[in-house]
């Protein structure tokens, strides 16, 4: 991957002495090559790896989507058997949500939270590495189901009892349950780490209400994960115990109620929607002010509405169950709460528009995406409101109308915002801008492709086309729009290809010196991450920054004259740190997070195929935890002052790493 091969500037150059905590591994010291990536605890490298992994899974999920669209392009499609189709569409959803949208959100969280609050790294660097490896091995474990007999086939929300052994005898659902359990650990550990970082690691003067909107939205996201992940953990455990150990949680004959799964899943699942969308909102809130030359309109309302969404997101889960038979009273309550969660979302959209109003809009590629997001998200949001009209929802739900709805939210809102984020921060991360012409091709293909794909799905849904059907018969009026949808899907594929071409071309050109380095502040931006060199040096900032207000970096570049007109005080280059301070104390790399994470899929395979396999898994896990706690967070031989990293004590490491896991093993 071109994305991860970009060398990063390295801060400390002294070769430290080597010490081996368990006598197994030497303390890793690699500064370049693959070793520096597998042992890294640097939040930026971890963020890049999250992004790269997310993009690879994006291609996997995209190929699954194309297979679905080839199958449905014509009536009675026969490319895929019913069995394969059910696995493909399930894995498309699981991949796109858990292995694409979540890690891409995590990529932005990891890279930018410490930078935007002016910290040197996250609170627990090794736990951060552990989160990433957990996510990666979980994702690979989930995907390996294709080699071991086929993917999960119960839909991404996997309603019981269709996921029981009686109805899904293959191993796909086991991979689903255990794979999501492993990626869940990644999210939970990451959430604890990042919340601690935001609350505790802010630089001098960075009060909560001076944090950029992106950091705020990511903070709310992490809180949602913190409380939502344990709920799906319970659900997945119950499912695993049913499937592997003969428990009775979803066996109706034994008295189980299938609605238990639905409630547990959606109590997780609805906050999860906001886990995906809030980072996107944050990204848009960074891009629009930069390219409007105005501060964000209504900062406190932006923050407040994000928090409101975070709270209200817990009170709407049963709107996924309006036809499940939860009773008219519950339907009424959830119908109303769902309608009113539209209010804070609407506030955000109007505030973005108000930020643009009267501004100087410059249509660089990131801005194109950031402008498209409110429009596309509004379509998804409004169709969401039509879903909240619960009696009518009994017509719309489980048809292509709802497929259209959530794709406008996830693709039109979230993926578009992530694209904008890539173009916006690429120069900060890698030191050069992506090509703007290709970027515009990318954008327009994306916008046209996604509207051609997901727009007609509204019509198909209202025409009565059910979701999750492997074929449709001619004569229901579905033929025309399905063909359009499938053509649109391939336009999206072209758009993705143009992005990849852009990345490769721009990288090659930069390496050959055909593109100039972007410099610290290529967009005349506003927040702290631009106040250091590009690419960001390993130690982030040369010295501690004292923050005196929102948009600190911008206020160091600009002031007001006596007519209250904006005047330049300094250039971004002058204000930004040079990134050449060699004396910043850094956390040392470590093998142990990877070792611990590698134990998890082994335990997973053991639970599915042969319990004996869990033994090496448990040895890796427990041995890894032991090595981890015995290894000091910082190499004592590096003598960089006192150790102020609050890496976990033995107990905490066990508690946070082990608690979820011991139930597993």
């Amino acid at each position, binding site marked *: 991957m071109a994305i991860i091969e970009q060398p990063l500037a390295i801060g400390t150059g002294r070769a430290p002495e080597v010490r081996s905590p368990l006598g197994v591994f030497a303390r890793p010291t690699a500064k370049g090559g693959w070793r520096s990536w597998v042992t890294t605890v640097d939040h930026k490298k971890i963020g890049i790896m999250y992004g790269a992994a997310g993009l690879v899974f994006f291609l996997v999920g995209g190929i699954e989507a194309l297979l679905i669209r080839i199958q449905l392009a014509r009536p009675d499609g026969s490319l895929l058997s019913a069995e394969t189709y059910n696995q493909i569409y399930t894995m498309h959803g699981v991949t796109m949500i858990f292995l694409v949208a979540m890690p891409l959100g995590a990529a932005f969280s990891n890279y930018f939270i410490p930078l935007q609050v002016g910290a040197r790294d996250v609170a627990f660097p090794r736990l951060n590495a552990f989160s990433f490896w957990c996510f990666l091995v979980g994702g690979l474990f989930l995907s390996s189901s294709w080699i071991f007999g086929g993917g999960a086939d119960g839909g991404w929300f996997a309603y019981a009892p269709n996921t029981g052994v009686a109805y899904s005898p293959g191993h796909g659902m086991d991979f689903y349950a255990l794979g999501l359990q492993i990626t869940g650990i990644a999210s939970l550990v990451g959430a604890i780490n990042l919340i601690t970082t935001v609350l505790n690691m802010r630089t001098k003067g960075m009060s909560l209400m001076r944090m950029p909107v992106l950091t705020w939205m990511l903070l709310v996201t992490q809180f949602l994960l913190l409380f939502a992940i344990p709920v799906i953990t*319970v*659900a997945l455990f119950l499912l695993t115990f049913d499937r592997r150990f003969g428990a009775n949680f979803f066996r109706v004959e034994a008295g189980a109620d299938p609605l238990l799964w639905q409630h547990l899943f959606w109590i997780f699942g609805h906050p999860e929607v906001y886990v995906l969308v809030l980072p996107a909102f944050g990204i848009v809130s960074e891009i629009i002010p930069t390219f409007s030359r105005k501060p964000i309109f209504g900062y406190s309302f932006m923050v407040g509405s994000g928090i409101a969404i975070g709270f209200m997101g817990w009170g709407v889960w049963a709107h996924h169950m309006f036809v499940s038979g939860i009773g008219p009273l519950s339907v009424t309550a959830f119908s109303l709460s769902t309608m009113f969660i539209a209010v804070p979302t609407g506030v955000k959209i109007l505030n973005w528009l108000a930020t643009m109003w009267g501004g100087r809009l410059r249509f660089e590629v990131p801005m194109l995406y950031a402008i498209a997001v409110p429009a596309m998200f509004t379509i998804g949001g409004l169709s969401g409101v039509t879903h909240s009209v619960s009696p009518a929802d009994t017509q719309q739900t489980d048809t292509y109308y709802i497929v259209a709805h959530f794709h406008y939210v996830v693709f039109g809102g979230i993926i578009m915002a992530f694209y904008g984020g890539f173009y916006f921060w690429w120069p900060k991360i890698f030191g050069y801008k992506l090509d703007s012409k290709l970027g515009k091709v990318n954008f327009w293909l994306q916008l046209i492709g996604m509207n051609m794909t997901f727009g007609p799905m509204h019509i198909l849904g209202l025409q009565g086309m059910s979701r999750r059907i492997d074929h449709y018969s001619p004569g229901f009026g579905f033929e025309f729009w399905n063909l359009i949808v499938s053509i649109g899907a391939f336009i999206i594929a072209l758009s993705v290809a143009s992005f990849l071409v852009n990345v490769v071309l721009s990288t090659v050109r930069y390496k050959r010196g055909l593109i100039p380095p972007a410099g610290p502040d290529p967009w005349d931006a506003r927040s702290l991450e631009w106040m250091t060199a590009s690419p960001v040096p390993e130690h982030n900032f040369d010295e501690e920054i004292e923050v005196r207000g929102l948009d600190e970096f911008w206020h160091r570049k600009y002031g007001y004259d006596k007519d209250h007109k904006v005047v330049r005080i300094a250039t971004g280059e002058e204000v930004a740190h040079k990134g050449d301070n060699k004396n910043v104390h850094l956390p040392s790399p470590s093998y142990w997070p990877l070792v611990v994470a590698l134990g998890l899929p082994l335990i997973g395979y053991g639970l599915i195929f042969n319990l004996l396999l869990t033994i090496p898994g448990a040895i890796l896990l427990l041995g890894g935890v032991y090595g981890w706690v015995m290894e000091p967070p910082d190499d004592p031989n590096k003598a960089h002052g006192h150790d102020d990293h609050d890496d976990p004590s033995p107990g905490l490491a066990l508690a946070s790493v082990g608690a979820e896991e011991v139930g597993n093993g």
Partner: protein
Amino acid sequence: MADVAVATHAPAEHAGDDGHGHGASTGISNTKLAMWLFLGSECLLFGGLISTYLLYKNRIAEGSIGPKDVFDIPFTSASSFVLLMSSLTMVLALSAIQRGDERANRVWLLTTAVLGSIFIGGQIYEFTGFYREGLGYTTNIFGSAFYTLTGFHGVHVSIGIIMLMSLFVRSYRGHLHQAQAETVEIIGLYWHFVDVVWIVIFTIVYLIP
């Protein structure tokens, strides 16, 4: 979790800037804050398991083995009392290390771990008895829900015991001093949480018919 809320809304003053810009802005150390967050998350984990149990405990077929047939309230009350006492000894361990009395700290840590182990022993004894009476994990929906809920709690206690013992070993080797009192405090937080969860489980599962 009220305490997490407190942590979240703590004033954004800057405690202890140390030149690198990572003093604890909230005044709570990173590790302690992380433990509070983790425990907040754990509330939802046990919340899910307890809800599952409540939904299912009465959904067994007539004649199938149920709560009334197996529970031995006096025995479980006794073991609950033991676990509750371990919270007291945990407090004593913390207060010992805070005033620098490492030996007392070791004694109370060990006592806490032993009390926890007695509780776990009681749970194993209880489970064995239930199994002999015909309540297996797969017997009926009550069995599945009961063993899963109490089993998860038992695993949490066991992890706590391992953490206490590792503290004990560290202290014995001379690596745990007054300066590290916070480590004991944080593990104490976990231990108290697990105890409180047991009080909830004991009340809901055993005492409320």
